[in-house]
């Protein structure tokens, strides 16, 4: 009888790799692209679409010409280099005209001013975008509108300084009276004092100081603004002004006061019911009827005001959604703590409502920035239609169409896409629920 010694493995085998079809890129492709007949068909169609696009676009992009002085010269270079049937992009137009796309007809020797204003703008909005930066930077942010106005439009420095003094006057009156009269009355009186300052003292005083101490920059007219300079001026100003106005309108719409509510609803529904173009035409055609005779104020300012009103109505609706999404308990808790209306809004309600409405607010901002192109229809030189029309009117660049639109479109895309990614980042950062 032979004895069986059972085989007992003492050491483990090395783990073997899965078969070739079950690992790596093949597995991934099988799972994600070819998991069934339907999926395979879709993948193939997708591939055909990509190949078709690539076969048209890649040679066109690769054959791009940067050094030429006209479209015909571009075409000649492409034919000479790549053969008679080749097509190619003529980026030479961008090289020659980029400054018009960026600055419009702003005087060339003064390009440093908008550039500096743009860099300072990045500094000014940094503390708003990133909470980790020192809070003292907010002082610069508050001053920035005046600096920017002076840099872009030029003129005497005393005009923005005297306007700023109006805010100082408001703060002074408020400080002096608030202990005796309380917040509402002293704020009201401060506002009256500041309004009187701006309406009555502003112009003569700045002229007087300027005659004594002439400090200033060469002034630039509004019709010389154009391109992305114009889009960013209108877009950023309207964005900054429409958020507070939208918050006030949303609060007005939720107010218990019948009259305030009716006016807010009427305003919001009217603005949302008409296309932006009609409002822009109002700015260019109708304001001359609505304002006192002989007032003639700047077209860019008029457009900014109307665009701000337009955006504010949309933002008000977004914030109203945020307010409605807030549980009633939050309002009641704020009341239970004994906070008054504005304290409750500032400390409890708004921080939460705004957080909920971040995606909506940012998409309104993106829409607003895209809509700045519509100012082309009231005679301003926006980068899409205005400047492109100027370029295409030049005999050298007649008939060029893909390149200018792609150039302007890519810049718009980068800005808008950046804004939407920032809002997603902010949303994740502010998320407090643990789901």
């Amino acid at each position, binding site marked *: 009888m032979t004895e069986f010694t059972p085989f007992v493995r003492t050491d483990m085998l090395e783990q073997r790799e899965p078969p070739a079809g079950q690992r790596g890129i093949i597995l991934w492709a099988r799972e994600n692209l070819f998991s069934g007949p339907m999926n395979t068909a879709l993948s193939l169609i997708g591939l055909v679409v990509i190949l078709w696009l690539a076969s048209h676009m890649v040679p066109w992009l690769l054959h791009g010409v940067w050094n030429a002085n006209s479209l015909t010269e571009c075409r000649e270079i492409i034919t000479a280099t790549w053969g008679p049937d080749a097509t190619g992009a003529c980026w030479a137009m961008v090289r020659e005209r980029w400054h018009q796309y960026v600055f419009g007809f702003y005087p060339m020797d003064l390009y440093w001013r908008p550039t500096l204003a743009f860099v300072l703008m990045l500094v000014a909005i940094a503390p708003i975008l990133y909470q980790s930066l020192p809070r003292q930077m907010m002082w610069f942010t508050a001053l920035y509108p005046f600096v920017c106005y002076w840099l872009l439009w030029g003129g005497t420095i005393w005009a923005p300084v005297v306007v700023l003094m109006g805010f100082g006057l408001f703060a002074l009156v408020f400080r002096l009276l608030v202990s005796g009269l309380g917040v509402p009355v002293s704020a009201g009186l401060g506002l009256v004092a500041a309004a009187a300052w701006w309406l009555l003292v502003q112009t003569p005083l700045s002229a007087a100081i300027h005659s004594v101490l002439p400090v200033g920059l060469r002034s630039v007219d509004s019709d010389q603004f154009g391109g992305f300079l114009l889009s960013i001026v209108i877009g950023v100003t309207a964005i900054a002004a429409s958020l507070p106005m939208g918050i006030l309108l949303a609060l007005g719409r939720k107010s218990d006061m019948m009259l305030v509510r009716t006016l807010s609803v009427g305003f919001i529904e009217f603005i949302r019911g008409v*296309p932006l173009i009609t409002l822009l035409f109002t700015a260019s055609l109708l304001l001359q*009827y609505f304002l006192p005779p002989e007032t003639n104020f700047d077209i860019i300012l008029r457009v900014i005001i109307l665009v701000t009103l337009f955006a504010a109505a949309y933002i008000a609706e977004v914030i109203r959604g945020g307010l409605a999404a807030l549980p009633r308990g939050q309002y009641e808790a704020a009341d239970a703590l004994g906070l008054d209306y504005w304290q409750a809004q500032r400390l409890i309600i708004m921080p939460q409502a705004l957080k909920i409405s971040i995606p909506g607010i940012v998409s309104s901002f993106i829409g607003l920035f895209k809509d700045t*192109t*519509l100012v082309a229809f009231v005679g301003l030189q926006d980068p*899409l*239609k205005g400047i492109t029309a100027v370029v295409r009117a030049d005999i050298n660049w007649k008939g060029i169409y893909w390149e200018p639109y792609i150039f302007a*479109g890519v810049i*718009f895309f980068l800005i808008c896409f950046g804004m939407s990614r920032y809002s997603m980042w902010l949303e994740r950062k502010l998320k407090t629920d643990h789901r």
Partner: protein
Amino acid sequence: MAFVQDTPKDSFRLGMLIYDTRYRSITIQVIVLVLFLAFLSWLVNNTIENLAAKDRTFDFGFLWSRAGYDINQTLIPYTNDSTHMRAAMVGLLNTLLSAFVGCIIATFLGVFIGVLRLSKNWLVSRLMTVYVEVFRNVPVLLWILLASTVLSETTPAPSDFRVTEAMQAAGEQPKAHMLFNGSVAITNRSMNLPAPLVEHGLPRLEFLGLSLNSNVLAFLIVFGASIYANHLLRSNARRVQEQTGRRPVTWWKSLAILLIPSAALLFALGFHLDYPVMTKFNFRGGMELLHSFTALTLALALYTAAFIAEIVRAGIMAISRGQHEAAAALGLRPGRTMSLVILPQALRVIIPPLISQYLNLTKNTSLAIAVSYMDLRGTLGGITLNQTGKELECMLLMMAIYLTISLLISSLMNLFNRAVKLKER
């Protein structure tokens, strides 16, 4: 025992108007009312002064005077002898046509893209993401301008289609050919399509000052009636199915009900297609679809489709996994899970933002100004305004019309919301 007496004293002091919350709201409303009325009267006063200074009046009488300009796309009869009012109507109909066609294309495309973006297929979902991001983040004006430029710059001139006798003799071919067996010609200003015509049409109906095409009306009535008959047939089949468990075969009956009456009507009216034919300089006959219309509608549809795709995606994703699992547990197949469980719930989420996208598209048709499409802004707010110089009246009327359209659509949306609202507790 001491009670804290905190009921306010009855005596009224002036300060309570500001410091007492019971009276403060009245104070604020009075101040707001006074400021609002002051602002309004300031505006009206300025307007009256300005009108007087320009020696103009404020009246809408000009709407009934002769317009004197031509419109290149008219859905209702219009000549340059018609009134400005008629021109505005033509413009309004053009606006509505563009909005309607745009909404339909955008919906189909948007649903298609939104569903494919959720696909498990990596390549397809990425492609759709790229589409959505590219179209959402670039101004719609760019798409309109690009569509219009590409349509007009890459297509042949009408003269390229011409075949002269000399060319025939030499056996040469013209530079450009008509598509679809000689029925469609795309030139650099329009698309020439076959036009549906009737041989012995019914007379036009005059109704409340409107002139209606009774052929179209008759067709719509017959087609609507056959849809209703089909609905009756199907509900009858459902009843039979519920009683006996066996569903009668209906497909050939409903096909017959849907097609035969309309086809019979078309035959009776002598329906035929009128093909565009190249004459000496341009195409004659057929139907001319202007590139301005195509570019505007197509660009708006492509742009809005990106937003609709996001709405559809969000709507489907808003339905919790439990609903899928519950439907699977009931033994429903994937197709029926989608149509019976997921979609009815997703639609409740999808429809309100979808309608506001329709609203946006309708308002964006005013960008027709970029391609010189004669919409409401092009007629009433464009040529009429410039010819008559009645800026105030034209702009106010135009805003009122747009506002009416918007309010109509949003009140429809409110009705729908009320109908599908979850009935809770």
